[in-house]
């Protein structure tokens, strides 16, 4: 038996054991696992490893042909995430948040983006010989990935903690819902200026395409539809928009975000569509993790460099988030009531960050992108395993601050 075959069987067995263990956990999830293990499962990191196992480096179940065959599914995942993020920007809903909250959320995203962009750009200039445009593109993507925040940690908090810190958690939720706006907009614009596409990009044509799509979907959604029909329309919408974006050299994620923003403010079916989108949010996130796992590449020669890079990325990002949190807690008198360590609660990386990474990988199929994905994914693992500790620190300090207030 050849070595590769032996490896395939071995990893096949490993995969089965892994799934059995996951199944066991899911089955008996009412038993209290240690916090570390719970975070491991609830952040879906196991699906990342599943992707790595299924990918070309090990089992090769998702080989090149399969990956190509699954392109529409990837487009659907990116489209779904983009639509879901776009649906956060319903004007009527946004008006319910205090103005300070909204500006704090957008400011936090912008500060974290700029911080990360500068750091990453300097690092790329020092250690890599890339063209200027490529450096900007890469730094923009990684800074966008770094600037977005997820709510995983907030979902893990015990009920009494949620009650005690209602105000702080409300602000954190608002920030993590919206702070991806600036990073995603910048990523979307930077996508247009990719060195690969620059010659053929036509911004006027792209904008016209976007509005054409919105008009088309508005027609689809003028009447009340059965749920199964609405699911079909949403799937069609996500894949059609992603496909159009790719043909016109645009980011599928950003194009769907734009469509989502328009639909949520124009269609009467917005609530039902949102329910469909949110009902598979977790599976979509997990599948993105699987796809990223499949696409990433770990080379033994570069292992130490990638590990170092991911630690540096993680630390720099955390500093940016902490600084961003500190800055917004000084924005206005209203926001001064909140703990200065607000950034401690914004360290989780979630679906939007990963979707940007997947979008980047599909748009920029250079050899180095799979290494970059590997590096960032390691950073995601570090980040998601440690962020809960920092969130608890924030909430403890918030209690102390409350007790010292007159």
């Amino acid at each position: 038996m050849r070595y590769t075959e032996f490896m395939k069987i071995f990893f096949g067995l490993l995969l089965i054991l892994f799934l059995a263990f996951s199944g066991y956990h899911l089955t008996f999830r009412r038993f209290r696992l240690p916090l570390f293990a719970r975070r491991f499962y609830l952040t879906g990191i196991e699906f990342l490893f599943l992707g790595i196992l299924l990918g070309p480096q090990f089992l090769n179940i998702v080989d090149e042909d399969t990956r190509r065959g699954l392109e529409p599914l990837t487009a659907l995942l990116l489209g779904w995430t983009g639509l879901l993020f776009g649906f956060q920007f319903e004007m009527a809903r946004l008006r319910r948040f205090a103005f300070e909250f909204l500006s704090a959320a957008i400011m936090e995203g912008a500060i974290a983006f700029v911080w990360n962009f500068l750091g990453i750009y300097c690092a790329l200039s020092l250690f890599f010989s890339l063209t200027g445009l490529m450096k900007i593109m890469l730094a923009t993507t990684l800074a966008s990935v770094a600037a977005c925040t997820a709510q995983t940690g907030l979902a893990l908090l015990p009920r009494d903690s949620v009650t005690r810190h209602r105000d702080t958690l409300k602000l954190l939720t608002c920030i993590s819902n919206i702070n991806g706006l600036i990073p995603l907009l910048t990523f979307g614009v930077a996508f247009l200026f990719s060195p690969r596409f620059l010659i053929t990009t036509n911004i006027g044509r792209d904008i016209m395409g976007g509005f054409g799509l919105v008009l088309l979907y508005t027609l689809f959604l003028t009447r009340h539809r059965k749920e199964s029909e609405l699911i079909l329309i949403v799937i069609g919408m996500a894949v059609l928009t992603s496909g159009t974006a790719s043909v016109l050299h645009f980011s599928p994620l950003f194009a769907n975000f734009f469509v989502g923003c328009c639909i949520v403010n124009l269609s009467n079916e917005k609530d039902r569509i949102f329910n469909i989108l949110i009902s598979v949010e977790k599976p979509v996130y997990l599948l993105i993790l699987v796809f990223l796992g499949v696409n990433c590449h770990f080379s033994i020669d570069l292992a130490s460099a990638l590990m170092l890079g991911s630690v540096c990325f993680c630390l720099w990002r955390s500093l940016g988030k902490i600084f961003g949190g500190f800055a917004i807690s000084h924005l206005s008198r209203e926001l001064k009531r909140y703990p200065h360590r607000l950034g401690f609660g914004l360290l989780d990386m979630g679906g939007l960050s990963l979707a940007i990474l997947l979008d980047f990988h599909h748009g920029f199929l250079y050899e180095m992108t799979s290494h970059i994905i590997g590096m960032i994914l390691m950073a995601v693992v570090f980040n998601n395993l440690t962020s809960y500790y920092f969130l608890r620190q924030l909430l403890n300090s918030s209690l102390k601050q409350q007790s010292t207030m007159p």
Partner: protein
Amino acid sequence: MHKNLMTYFPALFLLIVFALWVKSVAIQSSWQGAGLINFSSAFVLLAAYLSGHILRLAQIPLVSACIFTGIIAGPYISGFLTSDMVGQLRLIDDLALSFIALTAGGELHLQSLRKRGAAIALNIVLITLAVFALVFAFVVFAGKEFQLIQNLSPAQTISLGILLGVVAVARSPSSAIAIISECRASGPFTETVLGVTIVMDVLIIILFTLALTVTRLILAGAGGISQYTFVVLFAELATSLLLGALIGKGVSFYIDRVGYDLSLFLLFIAFGITKTSLWLSHFTEEHFDIYLHLEPLLICMSAGFTVQNFSKKGFEFMESLDRIALPIYVLFFSLAGASLNLEALRMCWPLALSLVLIRAIGIFTGSWLAGTLHRDPALHNRNAWMGYLTQAGVAIGLAQLAQRQFPEIGEHLNTVVLAVISVNQIIGPVTFKTVLNKVGEAGKR
């Protein structure tokens, strides 16, 4: 309805204009190429959905509307979907077929099967005999009238007759399930048609293996029927059924103990089954010199059947499949339409139409006799043939298998089968919907 049409027509018009505009953009990179495939698949999905609503006015079922859309978008008419694109979407096609097979298994209720067992068995035996006998006789005795068969030797004509006769028995469970699901049909007639169609899908593999062996005897003039072939065949079928049952148990355990993200879980199962069975065939052939072909569709059907009949989770299972069934059916049948070989139909349409007619007569004779013997209502007996006309993937697969084994007659067989399927796949869903309305079982669920 007319108010709805006021939105369907402009939406379809705008979609087509948009598609033509996107199609006019020059494709210069693989990223754009992949995007165009995504765009095309979504375009077909949405266009088929709109066409389905528009054609509903003419009582045409959604399946047929999807097939028409696929044909129009496909390589032979507008060329919007090229053959390469259809090939690249094959994985989605396989995935959809596994999903449909899961649904097929779930639709079979043991209690109904027991109740309708005699009717199902009679229909299978009599339809198989009538269709095979008529098609075989037609090819052997009247085949010389057609250009395609004129130059074949008598032995080759007999072999072609046997193979065409067996392929004519094959049906399309996916179309049947899609129509039943669309019409929300339920009742003894529906159960009988579904039971016959699904059981026939298993039996056709055995019949075809037998036909291949006999053909080999006729064409090569040597050897005998090998027991080994049948032992392997039965081992494959038994293993597929057993594996499906085990997977079904696993699925019901998952629903029972976990219960959420069921659609994703079923997607994973369907994908896993398709890929693993292909890989296993390859692996056993390469390493142990054994060609063990596990049938993914049979595994999925068996899994669905187990969840429905040997667990208490049948309802949740079907509900979860139902929720995502519409996009899967629409995409699957549109791609099926785009894959239809209109070139083959153009080449031999007189022979194809004659075979379609002969097959329909065979089905009518068999189903009428079976119904009469079983004392089913006369209305059912007169119209049952309309429920058995659809034909799809399995028949194409069998013809391709025969082509590989007997290149001397394979090309003729493949061309005729593709042409016959093209006609049956277009008219079959329409007749099935009509008969479900006629016997009054549509809308009973």
